[in-house]
């Protein structure tokens, strides 16, 4: 039983770090800042959460602390990503030429 739990935990850890690798690759390869924010925040959040679950399978006695870290990351990470994207938009960062729709600019344009 313990060996199977260890194997599941190690596989989850591997999946989590694979998502971290994909996030890093997106951070290097994406064309403009907004796409990099997507890749660098969403993929790494999912990767870290999967890694936390994997470590929880490997060491069940640490579950409470891991749950606390996971809840905290889940609350704060999307918030910081949104604040960063808004700051980038307000300071007039250039968009990629392939960008089709920008609803924040439409909203700001309609405001009196």
């Amino acid at each position, binding site marked *: 039983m313990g060996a199977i739990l260890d194997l599941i935990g190690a596989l989850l850890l591997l999946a989590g770090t694979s998502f971290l690798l994909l996030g*890093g690759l997106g*951070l290097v390869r994406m064309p403009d800042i907004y796409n990099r924010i997507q890749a*660098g925040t969403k993929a790494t959040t999912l990767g*870290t959460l999967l890694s936390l679950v994997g*470590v929880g399978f*490997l060491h069940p006695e640490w579950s409470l602390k891991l749950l606390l870290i996971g809840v905290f990351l889940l609350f704060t990470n999307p918030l910081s990503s949104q*604040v*960063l994207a808004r700051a980038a938009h307000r300071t007039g960062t250039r968009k990629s030429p392939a960008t089709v729709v920008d609803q924040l600019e439409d909203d700001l344009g309609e405001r009196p």
Partner: protein
Amino acid sequence: MAEALVSLAAIIAGVAFLLVLWRFIKGPSPVDRIIAFDGLTIVSITGILFAALAAERGIYLDVALVYALLSFLGVIVVARFLERGF
């Protein structure tokens, strides 16, 4: 079996760390570097998890909690600095 998989996961996390560090060095604009800083903090949390696994000590996870808090505060401060300059 499980040990080898954990070692492979650590190597993959190291490659991800190097990729994000490259964006921090290269990044043309300050916002790029802030994103890379946030990403490096998050990858460091995974590094702390591996350190806790290697040393078998649960107290290391408290540092990861402090890291999650600090990453959030740092990004908020720098974004506010970019937007309004305090």
